[in-house]
């Protein structure tokens, strides 16, 4: 549990955050300059707020009123910086070991070899930071922070300059960190789907203020937040419960309200609640159930509100417990004679559903 309560003014920029984070992993969002880096910096002790109180798992890190200010190196908060901050005079391997080899053996949560292999750092170990490419640098920074086995890990756009293949390789590892080692994390990224792979809990900042905190689905209800999400093609974010797995066929079945949903094979246990999402553009409408088609999910519902956003037609499909957003072409409306109140089926391909909050 992380209690954050601080106020800080720096020139034009003023931030006031008061929130208690009770999740193992929290995504932090917000537009450029919202104060995300500032928030992480405050926690780590890099930035000293004008006034405030920070409590991590019951331990008070900072309390300006009581004059408490735990020094950085005692906070044991790892940080991966936007600008990697590798030690320029040390080789990659020395950088990696920096927080590691002084650590009591029992506090070590990874072996050096493990991290090196995972982040594909083997060939770089003897290089100096100035000899690395941008992405390589960021991988080393990530490894260095992990190896220091912190009790809280702060990640500031750690993968912004990584290629997709590496992202895909590192993400599962981040998930392992989350699941197996139980290091709580705050994860700043502009790529929502990246974060959703780690958690569905998030904190949304705008202009120094918290405009949303909680489960992604709930946070998304906020109009301010929604605007951001929409532009990311994340109109439908649903919490479902796993009912069964069919590994041979590569799918799982999940319960959405009273309906069953075919989703890509999930690694979660039966009974787990997981988050799935799909863009409105992935939801098709049919007036009748359709057969002889590879689209497995055909959810009966009622047409709700219909609205135009920019060039897009968005229509709500009201299921018994949830509402889906479908994007249809303007042409489809006369073609299918769509109107509010009409009974329709929402068609979603199994493969168009993204699973979050679980190992790939």
């Amino acid at each position, binding site marked *: 549990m992380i209690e954050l309560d601080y106020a800080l003014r720096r020139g034009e920029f003023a931030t006031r955050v008061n929130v208690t984070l009770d999740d193992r992993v929290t995504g932090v969002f917000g537009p450029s300059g919202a104060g995300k880096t500032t928030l992480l910096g405050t926690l*780590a*002790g*890099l930035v000293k707020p004008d006034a405030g109180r920070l409590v991590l798992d019951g331990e008070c890190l900072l309390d300006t009123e009581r004059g408490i200010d735990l020094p950085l190196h005692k906070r044991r*908060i790892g940080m991966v910086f936007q600008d990697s*901050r590798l*030690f*320029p005079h040390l080789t990659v391997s020395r950088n990696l070991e920096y*927080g590691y080899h002084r650590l009591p053996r029992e506090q070590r949560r990874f072996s050096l070899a493990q991290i090196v292999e995972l982040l594909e750092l083997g060939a770089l170990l003897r290089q*100096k930071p100035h000899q690395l490419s941008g992405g390589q640098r960021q991988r080393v920074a990530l490894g*260095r922070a992990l190896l220091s086995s912190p009790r809280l890990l702060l990640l500031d756009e750690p993968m912004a300059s990584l290629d997709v293949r590496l992202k895909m390789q590192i993400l599962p590892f981040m998930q392992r960190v989350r699941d197996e080692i139980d290091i709580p994390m705050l994860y700043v990224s502009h790529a929502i789907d990246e974060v959703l792979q780690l958690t569905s809990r998030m904190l949304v900042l705008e202009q120094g203020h918290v405009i949303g905190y909680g489960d992604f689905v709930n946070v998304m209800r906020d109009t301010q937040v929604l605007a951001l999400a929409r532009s990311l093609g994340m109109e439908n974010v649903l919490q479902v419960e796993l009912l069964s797995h069919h590994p041979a066929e590569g799918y799982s079945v999940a319960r959405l309200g009273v309906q069953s949903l075919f989703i890509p094979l999930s690694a979660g246990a039966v009974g787990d609640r997981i988050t799935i999402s799909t863009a409105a553009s992935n939801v098709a409408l049919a007036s009748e159930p359709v057969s002889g088609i590879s689209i497995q999910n055909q959810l009966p519902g009622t047409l709700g509100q219909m609205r135009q956003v920019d060039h897009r037609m968005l229509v709500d499909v009201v299921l018994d417990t949830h509402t889906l957003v479908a994007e249809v072409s303007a042409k489809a409306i006369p073609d299918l004679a769509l109107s509010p109140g009409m009974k329709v089926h929402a068609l979603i391909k199994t493969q168009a559903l993204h699973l979050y909050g679980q190992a790939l």
Partner: protein
Amino acid sequence: MSILQLTPEEIAALWLSAKVAFFCTLLILIPGVLLGWVLARKRFFGKALLDSVVHLPLVLPPVVPGFLLLLLFGSQGFLGKWLQETFGISIAFTWMGAVVASAIMALPLMVRSARLAVSQVDRGLELAAQSLGAHPLRVFFSITLPLALPGILTGMVLAFSRSLGEFGATITFVGNIEGETRTLPLAIYTYTQIPGGDIPALRLVLLSLLLAFAALYFSNVMEQRALRRIGSGDDRA
């Protein structure tokens, strides 16, 4: 090349100068770096005063610090008595005194260089190191110090050179005793006081230069190495 034929006394002076400059550099290395670091990074009451005091030896004619040292370390002096009583040693009129005299004169150069170097070390890196659990002391030794190394080397070169050339404070504090405190500058001074001493003086000047060049060469090699370590060598990229 009879001009280069050295007398035993001259060889002694050369050797003594090298010894004094070496130990002078060694002696102020740690206090110089620490003072530089404190002045670059810390805020405290009396900082301006400390800063000023460090510069004193530079500002005063060398005779003055020399005389003050005599007052302090002489047999009547506060520190001199204490050293005598505690360790049974007296540094006045010894080569160790010459080391102390040139150390005092060279200290401001060392401190200023170290201070400049430390103040240009990226705070962000120090903070990153701390966030990895490193005690500030460890951060200092493992991050700040290595990154400030080129500046510290500069300070050492300046200190060594200043010590090689130090005359006023040395002769005032420890006198001009052949084989004990007659360093090259004192020997050169002696020659300049004698009509017709120009040629032997010139020979000693050349000797000084040789010693200085050797030190400079060594320091440049070290500096290049230090710069290469942090990747800011002569590379175009």
